[in-house]
C-alpha cells in the first residue's frame, strides 16, 4: 500500500558565511491515512526545518538540496507552482507555533476564515459565512457569531489557535502539520487544544504530523514517533514500543527528563548534559557521541539506521546489537 506522505532522503541546507550548513540530513519517513506521527527532539535539531521543507516554505537562504516528498504519489518538490498551490491548503495544511502572529491583525476573524473558505471552494459569501460559523463551533469557540466580528488582538492565545485550526480545517485537509501548536499556550489550554486535535482526527480520519518537544504530548497523541537529533532521525518506532523499549541512548535520555507522578523524591530529574552541537553536519561519527554516557571507540564511525523488529529502527550500532 502506498503511503499518504512519503519523505525520502530529504536534505535541507542553509547558506552561511562558511558555506552551506546542512540542517536536515537525509530524513526519510512516511505518514499513512489517519495516522499521527510525532517528530520529537530538542530545539535546533531540525524539526521545524523538516516541516517547512515539506511545505516548500524554507524562505531566504534555505533550500532543499536532495530528496523527494511524495504526497499521494506526486512529488511536492518538483511540481509546478500552480499545482502546489492547489495541494497546499486543499489537502495539506499547517498550523504554526505562535498563534499570536498567525492571524492578520487588520482583518476580523470572520473575514479571514471566509476568505480562506472561498479561496478553496468557490462558495458564495453567505454560504462561506455559514460554513465558517460551523467550523468555529466545531473547534469549540463558545460564541461563534460574536467571534466572527472580532479582531485577532482581542482574543486570547488559545482562542487564536482554535481559529487557526478552524482556518486550517476550512478545506478538509488530508494531512495537517502542526508545528509545536501548543508551545506558546499555557498548560490547561494546551490540553484543550490537543483534545480538539485528537477529536478532529477521529472525526475526519485526518493524518497529522505533530512536531513537539513535549514527551507528554507524544505519549498522548502519537501512533508513531520519530526522534530527531542534529538533523538526523535517530530512532523511529511505534509509540508504545518507543516508550516501553527506547533503544537509542538519546531517546532514553529524553524519556528520563520527564517527571512522572510516581517519582516523589526518589528520583532526581535527569538532564542531558551539553547542547546540540552547532555545526553538526561536520561531525563524521555518531552526532550524539559527545553527550553519550555509553560512548565507545566505534562511535566515531558514521552510524546508519539499523532495523530492529517490525517498524523500529535506530541509528546506533551498540543499541542495535545489545539484547533488549
Amino acid at each position, binding site marked *: 500500500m502506498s503511503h499518504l506522505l512519503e519523505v525520502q532522503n530529504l536534505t535541507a541546507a542553509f547558506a552561511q558565511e562558511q558555506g552551506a550548513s546542512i540542517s536536515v540530513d537525509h530524513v526519510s519517513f512516511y505518514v499513512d491515512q489517519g495516522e499521527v506521527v510525532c517528530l520529537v527532539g530538542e530545539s535546533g535539531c531540525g524539526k521545524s526545518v523538516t516541516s517547512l521543507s515539506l*511545505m516548500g*516554505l524554507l524562505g531566504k537562504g534555505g533550500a532543499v538540496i536532495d530528496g523527494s516528498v511524495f504526497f499521494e504519489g506526486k512529488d511536492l518538490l518538483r511540481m509546478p507552482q500552480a499545482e502546489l498551490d492547489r495541494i497546499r491548503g486543499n489537502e495539506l495544511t499547517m498550523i*504554526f507555533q505562535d498563534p499570536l502572529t498567525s492571524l492578520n491583525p*487588520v482583518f476580523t476573524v470572520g473575514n479571514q476564515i471566509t476568505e480562506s473558505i472561498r*479561496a478553496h471552494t468557490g462558495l458564495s459569501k453567505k454560504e462561506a459565512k455559514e460554513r465558517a460559523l460551523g467550523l468555529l463551533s466545531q473547534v469549540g469557540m463558545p460564541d461563534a457569531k460574536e467571534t466572527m466580528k472580532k479582531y485577532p488582538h482581542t482574543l486570547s492565545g488559545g482562542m487564536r489557535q482554535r481559529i487557526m485550526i478552524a482556518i486550517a480545517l476550512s478545506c478538509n485537509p488530508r494531512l495537517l502539520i502542526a508545528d509545536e501548536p501548543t508551545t506558546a499556550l499555557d498548560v490547561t489550554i494546551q490540553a484543550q487544544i490537543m483534545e480538539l486535535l485528537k477529536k478532529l482526527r477521529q472525526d475526519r480520519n485526518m493524518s497529522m504530523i505533530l512536531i513537539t518537544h513535549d514527551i507528554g504530548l507524544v505519549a498522548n497523541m502519537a501512533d508513531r514517533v520519530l526522534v530527531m537529533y542534529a538533523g538526523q532521525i535517530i530512532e523511529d518506532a511505534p509509540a508504545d514500543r518507543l516508550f516501553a523499549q527506547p533503544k537509542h541512548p538519546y531517546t532514553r535520555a529524553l524519556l528520563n527528563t520527564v517527571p512522572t507522578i510516581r517519582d516523589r523524591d526518589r528520583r532526581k530529574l535527569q538532564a542531558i548534559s551539553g547542547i546540540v552541537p552547532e555545526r553538526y553536519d561536520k561531525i563524521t561519527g555518531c552526532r550524539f557521541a559527545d553527550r553519550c554516557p555509553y560512548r565507545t571507540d566505534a562511535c566515531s564511525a558514521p552510524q546508519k539506521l539499523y532495523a530492529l523488529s517490525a517498524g523500529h529502527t535506530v541509528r546506533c550500532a551498540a543499541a542495535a546489537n545489545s539484547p533488549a
Partner: protein
Amino acid sequence: MKKDTLSEKKKHKPARHPADESYLRLVFRRFVHHRLAAVSLIVLGVIVSAALLAPIIAPYDPQDIAGPFAQPPSGSFWLGTDQIGRDMLSRLLYATRISLLVGVMATAISTAIGVLLGLIAGYFGGAADMIIMRFTDMVMSFPYILLVLVAAAIFRPGLVSIILILGFVDWPGIARLVRGNVLGLRETNFVKGSLVAGMPLRHILFSEILPNTVAPILVYATSVLALSILDEAALSFLGQGVQPPTASLGNMLNGAQSLTVLTTQPWLWLPPGLIIICIVIAINFIGDALRDALDPNGGK
C-alpha cells in the same frame, strides 16, 4: 435630576467595551484627542469646500476683467483686483482649487508608484530589490528642484505636466517605507499561513501585506501632499508651473516679484501666501495626529 441620569445613561451606551469598538472609531477618538489636528481638519475642510464650491461662490469669473486695475480691497471686490482688473477673491478660490488638485493628483501618482515598487522590492528581494532600490537611491540623490526645473523645461509647462513631474519625483520615500515594512511582514506567520493555504500571489501582496502597511503610507502621503503643494507654488512662482491665465497659488505670488507690488499692494500676495501656509501647516498637523492615531501600539 432624573432627566440628567437618563441622558447620562444614553451617553454611556455608545462607549462600549474597548474590544468591541471598531478600529475606525478608535482611530477617530484618538485623532480628535489632538486639538491642533482637529482644528487643522476644520480649517482644511473650510478651504477645501470653498475651493470645491468656487464656481458657485466666486463673485466673478476669475479670467474676466471685472473692474479697475490694482484696486485695494473694497465692498465690491473683497480682496481687491490685480494689475489687469481681475477679482482677487475669485482668482484665489480657483487658484486654491488648482493647487489642491495638483497636490492630490501628484500624491496619488507618487503613492501608487512607491507602493508598487516597494511591494515588489520587499517581497521578492534579490535582484528585483537591488535594481529597484538603486534606482530609488538615484532618484533620491538627484538635486530635486533642479530635476523638476529641467523636466518642466523639456515638457511644455502646464497643469498636466506639473502633476506628472511632481508625481514622478516624490515616490522614493514611499517606496523605501513600504519596502521596509514588507520585509518584516513577509516573515510573519499570517503571510506564511496564506502561502500554506495556497493563496495566489496577488492576494498575498495586496490583501495580506498591503493593508498592514496602509497606516504609515497614509501618514507619509500627507507630508508628500504638503510638499507637492509647496513645490507647485515654487515652480509656478518661477514661471515653470501652472501657466497664466489659469490661476494657481504659486503664480498668483508671481506678481510679488516686483518691488512695487511687494511694498505697496499687499492684497495681491498676502492672501495666496497665507492660504499656502494654512494648507501646509494644517496637513502637517493632521499627518502628525494620524500617525499617533493609527499606531496600533499607541496609548489607549
